C-alpha cells in the first residue's frame, strides 16, 4: 500500500547506527524500551538494597552492617523503587502503548521525550554515587524530614539535585502525554471511547504536573536551610519543621496515586480480554479515576495524624481519606463484575491481574484501617505501615507492571514467551510476597517500629519468616529476567497481530512486532475496535 501520505512520517528508518537509535532516539517505541529496561535494571538495584535490609533483619542483633548504613539502605531503597522503578516503568508503558492505542504515529513532542528519558540515568548516577561519599548516602528515609535530614552529610545536595532532575523528567514526560492524548487521537477515538490505560495516564499526568513541582519546592527549601542559612524548617529560628511535612505530603499522597492509577488502567485492559466481556461500567471507571485523583489533594495530613493537628483537621482528613474507598471500591467491583459470568481463561497476564486485585484489596483495607485517627496513633511508624504500602506498591503497582509486560510483550517483540515459566513466576511471586509482607502486619500490631536495624527478640520469629519470603520473592524475579530475555532474543514462537483472542484496541490491529513507525496515516476507527466502550458486545 503506497499512499502518498505514508511518506509524511517516513524518515530515517533503516539507516540508524546503534548510537543514533538508542541515544538520539525520538521514536516512542525505542524510548519506551529504554524506560522499561532502565526501570528493570533499577528494580534489581533497589531489590538488592531490600535483600540487604531483610538479611540484617533476619535475626535480632547487629550482624552484617553498621546501623547508619542500614538507614542509608532504607532511604535509598524507597527513593530507587519509587522514582527509579515504578514511575519510569509506567512512563515506559505509556510511551509504548499510548500512541498505538490512540492511532497516532508517535508522541506529540518526540525530542522532549528523549530529554525526559535521558535525565533519568544522570539523576540516578548522582543519587547512587552518594554511597561512596564521605558521610555516606542520605539516611533520613525517602521522606527526607527535617531536622533529621539536615544533620546528615553533604551528600544531601546530590540527593536534592537528583530529585530536581527526576521532577523535571517526569513533568516533561507528563506534558508530552497530555499533549499527545489531547492532540494526536485518530478520528473516531473520542475521549469517552479511549482505552482505560490512556485515560488513567491522562489523569495521572495532571497529578504529576501538580505535585512534582511541589516536591521540588520542598527539597529546594531544605537545600537552602542546609547550605544558605535560611530557616524554613528550623524551629530554633522560628521556622516550622511540620510545614515540611505538609508540603511534602501535599506531593506525597497524590504521588501514591501516580503509582497506582496507571495500574488501574492496565488491569482494566487485561481483565476484559480474558473474561471475553467488555469492561463493566466504562464511564464509572473513568469517573472513579478522576474522583480518586481529585480527592488525593484533600487527604495529605493522614500521614501526619500524630504531629498535633487541630481536632477538626484530624476529623476532616479522616473522613476525606475514607471517602476515597468509595471510587476505589467502584473499580474493584467493576473488575469483579467484568469477570462475573465471563468465559474466563487464565493466561499469564490474567493471573497477574487477579493477583493485583486480591493483593491491592488487602493493601487498600489496611489503608482504611490507618485512616481512622485513633487507630493510626497505634499504627503510626510501625511495620503495619510498611506492610500496607508494600501490599499496594508490590502487590499493586509492580504486579500490574509485570502483568502489562506479559500482556504486551508479544506485541513488542513479535514472539510468545514460555507459558510454563511465566506462570511459575506468578505463583512463586504471589506466594512469596505474602510470606514476605503478611507477617509484617503482625509485627506492626505488636509495635515493631519501621527503619530500625535491630529489634526486640519478641519480634524474632515473624521477622525470620518475612526475610525468607523476601529472599524467595527476590530470587523469583530472576525467572522474569529469563522469560523476557528468552522471549525477545531466542523464542521461535511467532505472535499473531491480535495476540489474545478477545483483545480489543487499536494496538492489536498492528502486526507483531509493531513496526518501527505505526499509524503514519491516521487509521479509520470504528467502535468495534474499541471494545472498552461496551459499544459492541461480542
Amino acid at each position, binding site marked *: 500500500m503506497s*499512499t502518498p*501520505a505514508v511518506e509524511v512520517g517516513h524518515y530515517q528508518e533503516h539507516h540508524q547506527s546503534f548510537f543514533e537509535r538508542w541515544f538520539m532516539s525520538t521514536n516512542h517505541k525505542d524510548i519506551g524500551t529504554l524506560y522499561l529496561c532502565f526501570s528493570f535494571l533499577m528494580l534489581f538495584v533497589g531489590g538488592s538494597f531490600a535483600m540487604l535490609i531483610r538479611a540484617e533483619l533476619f535475626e535480632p542483633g547487629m550482624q552484617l552492617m553498621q546501623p547508619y548504613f542500614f538507614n542509608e539502605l532504607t532511604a535509598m531503597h524507597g527513593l530507587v523503587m519509587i522514582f527509579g522503578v515504578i514511575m519510569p516503568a509506567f512512563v515506559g508503558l505509556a510511551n509504548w502503548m499510548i500512541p498505538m492505542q490512540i492511532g497516532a504515529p508517535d508522541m506529540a513532542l518526540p525530542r522532549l521525550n528523549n530529554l525526559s528519558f535521558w535525565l533519568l540515568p544522570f539523576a540516578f548516577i548522582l543519587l547512587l554515587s552518594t554511597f561512596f561519599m564521605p558521610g555516606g548516602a542520605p539516611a533520613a528515609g525517602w521522606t527526607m524530614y527535617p531536622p533529621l535530614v539536615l544533620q546528615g552529610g553533604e551528600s544531601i545536595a546530590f540527593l536534592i539535585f537528583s530529585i530536581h532532575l527526576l521532577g523535571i523528567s517526569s513533568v516533561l514526560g507528563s506534558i508530552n502525554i*497530555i499533549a499527545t492524548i489531547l492532540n494526536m487521537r485518530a478520528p473516531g477515538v473520542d475521549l469517552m471511547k479511549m482505552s482505560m490505560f490512556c485515560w488513567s495516564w491522562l489523569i495521572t499526568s495532571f497529578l504529576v*504536573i501538580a505535585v512534582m513541582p*511541589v516536591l521540588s*519546592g520542598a527539597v529546594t527549601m531544605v537545600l537552602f536551610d542546609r547550605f544558605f542559612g535560611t530557616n*524554613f524548617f528550623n524551629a530554633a529560628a522560628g521556622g*516550622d519543621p511540620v510545614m515540611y511535612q505538609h508540603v511534602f505530603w501535599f506531593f506525597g499522597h497524590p504521588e501514591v496515586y501516580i503509582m497506582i492509577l496507571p495500574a488501574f488502567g492496565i488491569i482494566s485492559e487485561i481483565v476484559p480480554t480474558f473474561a471475553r466481556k467488555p469492561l463493566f461500567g466504562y464511564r464509572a471507571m473513568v469517573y472513579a479515576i478522576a474522583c480518586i485523583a481529585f480527592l488525593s489533594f484533600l487527604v495529605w495530613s493522614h500521614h501526619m495524624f500524630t504531629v498535633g493537628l487541630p481536632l477538626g483537621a484530624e476529623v476532616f482528613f479522616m473522613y476525606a481519606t475514607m471517602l476515597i474507598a468509595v471510587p476505589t471500591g467502584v473499580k474493584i467491583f467493576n473488575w469483579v463484575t467484568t469477570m462475573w459470568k465471563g468465559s474466563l481463561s487464565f493466561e499469564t497476564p490474567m493471573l497477574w491481574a487477579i493477583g493485583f486485585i486480591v493483593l491491592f484489596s488487602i493493601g487498600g483495607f489496611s489503608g482504611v484501617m490507618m485512616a481512622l485517627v485513633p487507630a493510626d496513633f497505634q499504627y503510626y511508624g510501625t511495620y503495619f505501615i510498611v506492610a500496607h504500602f508494600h501490599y499496594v506498591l508490590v502487590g499493586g503497582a509492580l504486579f500490574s507492571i509485570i502483568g502489562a509486560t506479559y500482556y504486551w510483550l508479544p506485541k513488542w517483540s513479535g514472539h510468545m514467551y514460555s507459558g510454563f515459566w511465566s506462570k511459575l513466576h506468578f505463583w512463586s511471586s504471589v506466594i512469596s510476597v505474602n510470606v514476605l509482607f503478611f507477617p509484617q502486619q503482625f509485627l506492626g500490631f505488636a509495635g515493631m517500629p519501621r527503619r530500625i536495624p535491630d529489634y526486640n527478640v519478641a519480634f524474632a520469629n515473624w521477622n525470620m519468616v518475612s526475610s525468607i519470603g523476601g529472599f524467595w520473592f527476590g530470587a523469583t524475579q530472576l525467572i522474569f529476567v529469563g522469560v523476557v530475555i528468552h522471549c525477545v532474543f531466542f523464542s521461535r514462537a511467532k505472535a499473531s497481530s491480535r495476540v489474545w483472542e478477545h483483545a480489543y484496541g487499536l494496538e492489536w490491529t498492528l502486526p507483531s512486532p509493531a513496526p518501527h513507525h505505526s499509524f503514519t496515516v491516521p487509521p479509520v476507527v470504528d467502535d468495534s475496535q474499541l471494545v472498552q466502550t461496551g459499544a459492541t458486545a461480542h
Partner: protein
Amino acid sequence: MSQPDDGQPKPSVDEALRAAERRKASARRTAWIIAGIAIAFFVASLVHGHLVGISNWVPPH
C-alpha cells in the same frame, strides 16, 4: 502498511502535511500551558514556605 484498507480516498500529501503541522502547533500550545501550570505550582510551594517562615520569623540575636 498496517492500516485497514477501507477503499476510502486517501488524503493528499499536502493535506496530510498541513494536518500534521496543525496538530504539532496545537500540541506545542498544550505543552506550554501545562508547563506554566507546573511552574506555578513550584512557585506557590516556595511562596507558601516563605510566608509561613516570615510570620514566624525570629530575628537572630
